[in-house]
């Protein structure tokens, strides 16, 4: 593998790569910068890039605005809650499929995947009516339930691909030594599975945090997470760019950082193991 890379070639790709990277990242950077401007500077022509009076006023204002913290809490409760319940359901299932596969395991996996292909509008009407009749509209409980179900196939699949990589010989050795199933799971497998479970968790929190079909359709004022809160800026408050930017920055920053940490697992999770 001695492909010599000339400095000139490296320099060319450095410039090209950074130019493309910054171009793609620009809308996010621009949102971040605008969040520190006054509303007047935000719409100024020509645009102010760095040399303006930086202010934190927008952040104060967005946070003091009626119920910002409620929406943050909703986002956290819904994304973390649905992920944890999903994991609780999926870990045993993926475990069984990875370590005691039967002829039908593959069919079950494929079927689970196929539920993910169902377009949400196909079940919008009945779910809306069920939610209305059961008093689940605009509740966190309802959203946690829905997001758990829509992400469950991804969780099972990701865990399955991770569990598959744990060598079966280790299990057999533990069994020979007389370990019970419980002990086998707690002492032998869990330590090996923790990294896989952690990255599955991370990716699913991200997906649930950004989910914007059910969160927009099934919530109003009370259970609305940040996706729906930001949507309320569509008009006419969208004209307040600096505040929109501050709210947006706060809504995406934590998840962007988590996303960067989970980038290696992203491919596996989103392609159901088809590309590794």
């Amino acid at each position, binding site marked *: 593998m001695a492909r010599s890379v000339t400095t000139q070639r490296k320099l060319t*790709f*450095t410039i*090209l*790569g950074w130019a*493309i990277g*910054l171009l793609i*990242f620009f*809308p*996010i950077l*621009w949102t971040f910068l605008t969040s520190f401007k006054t509303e007047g500077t935000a719409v100024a*022509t*020509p645009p102010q890039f760095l040399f303006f009076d930086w202010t934190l006023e927008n952040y104060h204002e967005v946070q003091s605005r009626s119920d910002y913290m409620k929406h943050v809490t909703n986002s956290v409760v819904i994304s973390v809650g649905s992920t944890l319940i999903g994991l609780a359901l999926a870990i*045993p*299932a993926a475990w*069984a499929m990875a370590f*005691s596969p*039967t002829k039908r395991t*593959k069919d*079950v996996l*494929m079927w689970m995947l*196929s*539920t993910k*292909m*169902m*377009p*949400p*509008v*196909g*079940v*919008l009407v*009945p779910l809306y*009516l069920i939610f209305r009749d059961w008093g689940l509209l605009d509740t966190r409980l309802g959203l946690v339930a829905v997001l758990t179900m829509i992400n*469950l*196939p991804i969780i099972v699949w990701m865990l399955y691909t991770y569990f598959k990589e744990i060598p079966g010989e280790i299990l057999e050795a533990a069994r020979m030594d007389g370990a019970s199933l419980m002990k086998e799971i707690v002492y032998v497998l869990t330590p090996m599975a923790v990294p896989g479970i952690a990255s599955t968790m991370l990716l699913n929190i*991200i997906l649930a945090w950004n989910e*914007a*079909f059910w969160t*927009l359709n099934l919530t109003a004022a009370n259970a609305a997470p940040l*996706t729906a809160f*930001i*949507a309320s*800026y*569509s008009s006419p408050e*969208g*004209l307040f*760019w600096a505040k*929109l930017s501050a709210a947006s920055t706060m809504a995406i920053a934590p*998840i*962007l950082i*988590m*996303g*960067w940490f989970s*980038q290696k697992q*992203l*491919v596996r999770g*989103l*392609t159901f*193991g*088809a*590309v590794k």
Partner: protein
Amino acid sequence: MATLQTRATARLMMSPAVILLFLWMIVPLVMTLYFSFLRYNLLMPGTEEFIGFLNYQYFLTDPAFFTALGNTLMLVGGTLLITVIGGILLAIVLDQPFWGQGIVRLLVIAPFFVMPTVSALVWKNMLMHPVNGLFAWIARSFGFQPIDWFAQLPLFSIILIVAWQWLPFATLILLTALQSLDGEQIEAAEMDGAGALSRFYYLVLPHMSRAITVVILIQTIFLLSVFAEILVTTNGGPGLQTTNITYLIYAQALLQFDVGGASAGGIVAVILANIVAFFLIRLIGKNLER
């Protein structure tokens, strides 16, 4: 070497997930199917009656359906075109060694983590605004007339936003595929005098073909259901110019309260998605056998 007992345990461990997922899939779907044969409007309670395929007939002959179908195809096709071609080029660039590669990679995948409502509003207001937007300023500083994006090119504007969100996904997956390419094979081709273009065409592209298929199929599944971006920018307008199937059914259900008609539309959407899903499932299933 699974004993009978472990097999029973395995079934027990799987059952909660399987049963819940089964209920989640089948109950609403059967309800949608049932509603689709009813005259059922929430604004006119008590008038529900069985009307056979009338809802389907209305839905499928409504000019709005064809507009929405066309828009859906444009949205999916346009986004795929941008993200797949852009993704291939980006993957190739990111695969070259250069300074700060890791950071650039992070910058490129960032849009994927931005929630749809944020990206749509930021693009619509701060970039594409016809007077104060950044694009308008760039156009003016080069002496062009700024484009009023959402008035003149509404569907294309949405395609741009959605493509920006999905480009990182395509890039990341194609990059992963590219990195598994055998370097020695490329080197050998290089020594045999193959130019950069023929190396790309005969070696790189075939190697990536599976990943490209996966990108196309998975993105199609998600792109058929684009919703939030439309809701917060155009509400499907002007007219029906940015209404896709998903938005059309949403409007019929939650704005016009036509449960029957929306259900018929929902079933049509399920059928459309299933056609794509059929191919995707086969592809992934094949991979599972290896």
